[in-house]
């Protein structure tokens, strides 16, 4: 039997992927935008809806970055509201384990799972920088090396709290006046980062444990995912890159006593669909042009070079200087650990094609993953999954809130025809959609 594809909808965020200036682009904060995209995803029987997180507005050269979308709602509150207007769609919140306490996370995520009937997921992210820390009581207190230690300990404690009730401790015997057994939910833990004790005030939620998503790509991040995650939100959307990542991560599972199907790998991808392949290619080029204006090209190049490049013309050649490693020109977004080989590749490509700086950014960074007619896209998506480059995808649309309409209306039916994607939800929980054990 063919592998079944898993799909998620990413609400358009604060990267330049989101084309806010398009006449069709709607509000980035009105609840109606979130409701519409969620309803589209649920109509397409997607596994889950995904929200990223921001804890400080991004800055470039000491000023708030104003070229991309700025601002967003707080994830768990927004998803609890979406639980009211959807019935099956999983609801995934990105929440930082550095600037939140495990007890609070356990309580809030368990609440989302209870009020959604078992649809909650937590994308565990970490940060350590003083820049973000300036908005928080503790400040930037964590060594970079410690971030996964804290994340892992945080997740272990969150799970301990979710598991702190046994199945028979919630009694609900009205006649006898027994709501719960005394002592239910008692916990205590002592680790490198947390020493806590008390009682957890929520019995097991419908999923028992909400789904855990992990997005780290470093060796440490991959190991964390292999030991603890249910889903990986990866950046390896290409076929070859996806296969290599898939093999690497899945091969780490046996040492944790886990089977291959217990961890779903879902790269973030962008899709452009049109009537024909040629039309889709033109449309994709048009969208890339919208996504990377001249000033945006400079900002993205500054992120890679780690230098102020404002003296350069985006329509001219690439900067001649070498990149600076570990620069703080751009704050509040993931930078490059090793920019030198990437700059070399950009230079080689620019020279080979005669590209300007802007054209290089467009072609090296913003090329969409799947471009084509509905049939072409459906076949490519399925090919990636059947050939183990992925278990499915997190689709990142460029338009709010209509960006997934064409995929859901035109590609999803073809995947269903091929028997590789559900026509209706078989279960009610996200774990059930993902084929994970309860």
């Amino acid at each position: 039997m063919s592998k079944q594809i898993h799909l998620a909808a990413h609400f358009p965020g604060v990267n330049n992927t989101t084309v806010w200036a398009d006449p069709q682009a709607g509000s980035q904060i009105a609840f109606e935008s979130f409701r519409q995209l969620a309803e589209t995803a649920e109509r397409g029987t997607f596994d889950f809806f995904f929200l990223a997180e921001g804890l400080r507005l991004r800055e470039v050269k000491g000023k708030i970055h104003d070229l991309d979308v700025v601002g967003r709602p707080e994830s768990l509150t927004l998803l609890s509201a979406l639980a009211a207007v959807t019935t099956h769609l999983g609801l995934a919140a990105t929440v930082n384990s550095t600037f939140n306490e495990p007890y609070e996370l356990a309580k809030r995520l368990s609440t989302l799972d209870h009020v959604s009937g078992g649809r909650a997921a937590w994308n565990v992210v970490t940060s350590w920088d003083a820049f973000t820390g300036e908005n928080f009581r503790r400040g930037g207190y964590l060594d970079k090396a410690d971030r996964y230690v804290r994340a892992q300990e945080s997740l272990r404690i969150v799970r301990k709290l979710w598991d702190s009730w046994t199945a028979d401790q919630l009694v609900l015997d009205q006649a006898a006046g027994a709501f719960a057994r005394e002592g239910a939910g008692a916990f205590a833990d002592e680790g490198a980062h947390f020493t806590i004790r008390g009682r957890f005030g929520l019995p097991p939620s419908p999923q028992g444990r909400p789904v855990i998503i992990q997005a780290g790509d470093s060796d440490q991040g991959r190991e964390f995912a292999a030991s603890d995650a249910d889903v990986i939100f990866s950046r390896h959307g290409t076929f070859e890159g996806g296969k290599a990542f898939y093999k690497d991560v899945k091969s780490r599972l046996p040492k944790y006593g886990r089977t291959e199907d217990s961890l779903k790998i879902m790269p973030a991808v962008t899709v452009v669909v049109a009537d024909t392949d040629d039309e889709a290619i033109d449309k994709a080029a048009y969208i890339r042009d919208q996504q990377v204006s001249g000033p945006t090209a400079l900002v993205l190049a500054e992120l890679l070079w780690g230098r102020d490049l404002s003296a350069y013309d985006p329509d001219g050649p690439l900067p001649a200087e070498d990149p600076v490693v570990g620069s703080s020109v751009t704050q509040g977004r993931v930078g490059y650990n090793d920019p030198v080989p990437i700059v070399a590749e950009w230079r080689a490509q620019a020279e080979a094609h005669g590209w300007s700086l802007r054209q290089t950014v467009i072609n090296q960074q913003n090329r969409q993953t799947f471009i084509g007619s509905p049939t072409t896209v459906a076949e490519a998506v399925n090919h990636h999954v059947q050939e183990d480059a992925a278990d499915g995808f997190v689709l990142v649309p460029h338009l709010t809130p209509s960006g997934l309409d064409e995929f859901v209306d035109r590609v999803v039916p073809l995947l269903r025809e091929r028997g590789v994607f559900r026509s209706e939800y078989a279960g009610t929980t996200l774990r059930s959609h993902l084929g994970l054990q309860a």
Partner: protein
Amino acid sequence: MIVGLEIDGAGADPAAWRGAEVDPRAILTGELALRAVQRAEAAGVDFVTLVDALEAPDDVPDRVSVRLDALGLAARIAPLTERIGLLPAITVTHTEPFHVQASVATLDHISGGRGGWVAEVSSSAAAAAVVGRREPAPAAETWREARYVLDASRQLWDSWDDDAVIRDASTGRYVDREKLHYVDFESPTFSVKGPSIVPRPPQGHPVTAIRANTPDALEAAADAEVVLLPDPDLQAITITRLRASGAGEGRAPGDCDGLAIRHSGPLVLVSVEVRPHVDGVDGLVGLIEGWAAAGADGVHLRPGSLELDVPVIADQLLPLLRERGLVGPAERGGSLRGRLGLVRP
């Protein structure tokens, strides 16, 4: 008179969950709370408060010893209601001020300007132990810090101008960064750089309520827009005192639909546990008339049973109060601030 209603498990009566009319599982799905809020909204109740604390409820086998996160529950209710204000209790002692204000701002966005919160502190050793970050502090100290959190929250809600999002295609700028502000907030126990991550809430400032059940809380209540006074015996004195000390943020005397606002301090509501399905409503109407005469701005009802008492409040009490001209029409729309006679800052 403003009418608020409290949502707490199956009701304020510890035995309420045992009634045959109650499905105790509906406490955990949120359905019990949702039904009560929808009934209250249809009858014209102005807002609900949702009880919470950082730590779990007391571990007593014959009581409801579980509790959903009130913010999550309020958010779950928001899209299924249209007019009623939603004020979850949120604690500020062991939580991050930046997260708290972002959550309340988000509740305001998803509810179309009906968001608020009941600011609470955690002074107990039990609450300190579940987080394990700080030693428990006495109530006076935690309420002193809470006032800083309120101040920081309001500054962060103001850190985006209403018109900061410009979407100016000609210059490629999504925001006007001159309309985003660092708050650089400093207090003895925390600091916040800002700006907020959430655009300015629809109400400007979502409504802040404080339950004035201790002298320290009463002190801090001067900074709130709504004060819930749990001891009717003290009310005359405290109402006067609050009005003297209150900043009265955003109050516009006399501009509230159906209400005559006669002063500039925070709104003072008498908070009482009621069981009208047992006691009837006539006595309660008399009490409320008395509180109105004593100068209270409203009443905060804590029903013994959500399933039994809220229908009586909705079907009998509110119509009687309306007949006597004590409450406005049920169908009023708009923001919660507008409903309460608070101007938008």
